[in-house]
C-alpha cells in the first residue's frame, strides 16, 4: 500500500478558513493521488510557532473538517483513508509549548525545525512522529549524524517533499527553479548522509493536482540520489506506515500498551464506536456461550 503523508490543507492558521475553490483544488489533489495508487493520505495543517492556539475551544484546534471530508471522499473511493497531521515550524525551541496541547486532535505530529538548536530539541525532548525540512532553500545548518541517528533510533522519521522540485517554486518565490532544484538535491543528499539511508519517508506536499507523481517516478528520484531499491521502496511503504502507527497509537492507546477496539488494526482510520454487540464478533459469541453455560 502506498502512503502520502503530506497534502497541505489550503489555509495556514486559525483565522482564515479555506475558501470553496481552494477546497475543490485540494480534493482534486487527493483524487489524483488516489488514482495513482495512494490509499493512506494525511492532510497537513501547517502552523507557525507563534500562532495563538484556540485552547478554550478544543473543537477548533483541528481546523480540518475530517468528518465531512471522509463522508465526501471515502464512499466514492473505496479503500481511501484520510488522516490529519499538523506541522509546527519551530525556530526557537523555548516557544513550542503548543505541541502537547495539539496531541489529541491530530493523528500525526510533525515539526519543521529551522535551526540546529530546534532540530536538537525535536530529537531529544518532543514526542513527535516526523521531522520535515524546507528543502527549497539552503538549509541554514549542517545535519549531524549524531542528532539524526538518535532521532531515527527513537522512531522519528524524516520527510522529503518532492512537490517543490516538481513545481519549481516553493515557499519562497524569490529564488528561481534551478536554484530550488539544486538546493533540493544537495539537501536531500545531506539528509541521506546524515541518517545513513534509514528512516526516510517521501511525501508529495503537493498543493496542485499536477504536482503529484506516481510511485515509479518517486523511486526513480530516490535512486538518483543513491538509495538502493529496497530502501527506496521502504520510503513510500514501510516507513510511512510506522509513522502512522506511532501517531495513531499516541491518540488511541495508553502508552502503546492497551488500545480500544479489537479489530486487529493498529492504525484504524475512523474512531470506532466504543460499544458493540456481543453476538457480532466470534470471541463475543464464545463469551456469551460461556456465560450462559455456567
Amino acid at each position, binding site marked *: 500500500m502506498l502512503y502520502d503523508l503530506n497534502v497541505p490543507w489550503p489555509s495556514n492558521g486559525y483565522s482564515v478558513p479555506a475558501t470553496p475553490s481552494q477546497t475543490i483544488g485540494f480534493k482534486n489533489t487527493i483524487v489524483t493521488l488516489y488514482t495513482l495508487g495512494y490509499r493512506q493520505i494525511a492532510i497537513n495543517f501547517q502552523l507557525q510557532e507563534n500562532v495563538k492556539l484556540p485552547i478554550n475551544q478544543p473543537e477548533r484546534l483541528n481546523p480540518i473538517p475530517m468528518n465531512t471530508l471522509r463522508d465526501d471522499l471515502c464512499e466514492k473511493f473505496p479503500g481511501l483513508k484520510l488522516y490529519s497531521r499538523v506541522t509546527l515550524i519551530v525556530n526557537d525551541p523555548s516557544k513550542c509549548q503548543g505541541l502537547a496541547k495539539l496531541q489529541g486532535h491530530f493523528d500525526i505530529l510533525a515539526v519543521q525545525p529551522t535551526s540546529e538548536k530546534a532540530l536538537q530539541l525535536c530529537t531529544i525532548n518532543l514526542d513527535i512522529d516526523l521531522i520535515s525540512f524546507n528543502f527549497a532553500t539552503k538549509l541554514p545548518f549542517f545535519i549531524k549524524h549524531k542528532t539524526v541517528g538518535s532521532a531515527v533510533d527513537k*522512531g522519528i522519521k524524516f520527510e522529503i517533499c518532492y512537490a517543490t522540485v516538481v513545481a519549481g517554486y516553493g515557499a519562497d518565490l524569490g529564488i528561481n527553479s534551478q536554484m530550488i532544484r539544486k538546493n533540493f538535491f544537495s539537501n536531500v543528499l545531506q539528509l541521506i548522509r546524515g541518517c545513513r539511508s534509514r528512516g526516510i519517508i517521501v511525501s508529495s506536499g503537493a498543493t496542485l493536482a499536477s504536482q503529484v507523481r506516481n510511485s515509479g517516478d518517486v523511486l526513480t528520484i530516490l535512486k538518483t540520489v543513491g538509495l538502493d531499491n529496497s530502501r527506496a521502496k521502504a520510503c513510500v511503504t514501510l516507513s510511512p506506515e510506522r509513522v502512522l502507527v506511532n501517531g495513531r497509537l499516541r491518540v488511541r492507546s495508553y502508552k502503546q500498551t492497551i*488500545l480500544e477496539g479489537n479489530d486487529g488494526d493498529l492504525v484504524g482510520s475512523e474512531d470506532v464506536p466504543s460499544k458493540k454487540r456481543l453476538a457480532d464478533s466470534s470471541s463475543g459469541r464464545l463469551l456469551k456461550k460461556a456465560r450462559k453455560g455456567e
Partner: protein
Amino acid sequence: MNRDYAIEKQFLTRSYDSSSEIELLLEDRYSITGGQKPFMVFGKPEKQAPIKLEDNNTIPITKERKYNTRTELKNYFQQTLANQKRLIKKIQAYNRSKSEKPFPVKKMLHHYKIPEFEDFIPLNTLWQKYTQELLFPQKNIPPMSIVLPRLSSADLNGCLLTVLKSKNHNLVGTRGIVVCDTQHSFIICVPRNEDSKEWNENKQEFSPLEMMGGIRVVLKKGSLFGFDVVLPGSEEECIGFTIIGSRFEFRTSDRSGKKFKNHNVDDL
C-alpha cells in the same frame, strides 16, 4: 463421676491417630490404679536427625525447601504440555489406523489430566465482574483516557483473550482463558473443536490440536491480543480492547505500578 473427656479427646486427636489409643491413655490417666501422673504427653516424641551442615556451614537445600507454589505451577504446566504432546501423537496414530469410531477424546483428556476450557469459565465470570468494578465504578462509561491506564495495570488472569495478529501465523485466531500471566507469555486454556478458532465455527473436521484443547503458551512478543469487557447492567453489549504484546512484557506484579513509555514502533 462419669465423664467422656470430650475436651481431652479433642486435644489428643491432634497428636494420636487412633481413638482407641486415646481412650486407653485417658483411662490410664484418670483410673485409681493407673499411673495418675499429673502430666500428659502430647504428640509422639519423634527422633529428629540433626541437620547436617554443609562444608561452608550452610543448611543444605533439600527437596522440601525447594518446594513452593511457583515451581509447582511450572512443573504442572510442563507436565501438562508433555501429556498434550503424547495425546496428540495418540490421536495421529489413531487417525492413521482409519478406524470408523471417533476417537474417545473426552476419556483420554481425563486420563492425561488435561484441563478443559469449561473448567475455567467461572474464573472468566469472576474476571468480568472484577473488570466491571475496576473500569465502571459509577456504572457509566468514563472516557477512554481514564479506562485505558486502569486496564493496563489490571490483572488479566481469567480474561478471554484472542490472538489477533502474530509473527507466528499459526497462532492467529487462538483464543482461551488466561490461566497464568508470566513475563514473556500468556498461558491460556483453549476450547475444543468448533469453538477453538473464529473460522472453525462451521467446520466439521478438526486437527488433533483443535480436538484436544488444553493449555497453550503464547508468547507476548510480536502479538496483538484482543478481549471484550461486558458492560455492567447489559448482557449484550461489550467494549473491545487490544493488548500490544510487545509492550506488555512485564510480570504482573511489576506491571501494576509500572510507568509505561512510548517507544520506537519498528517492532510492532
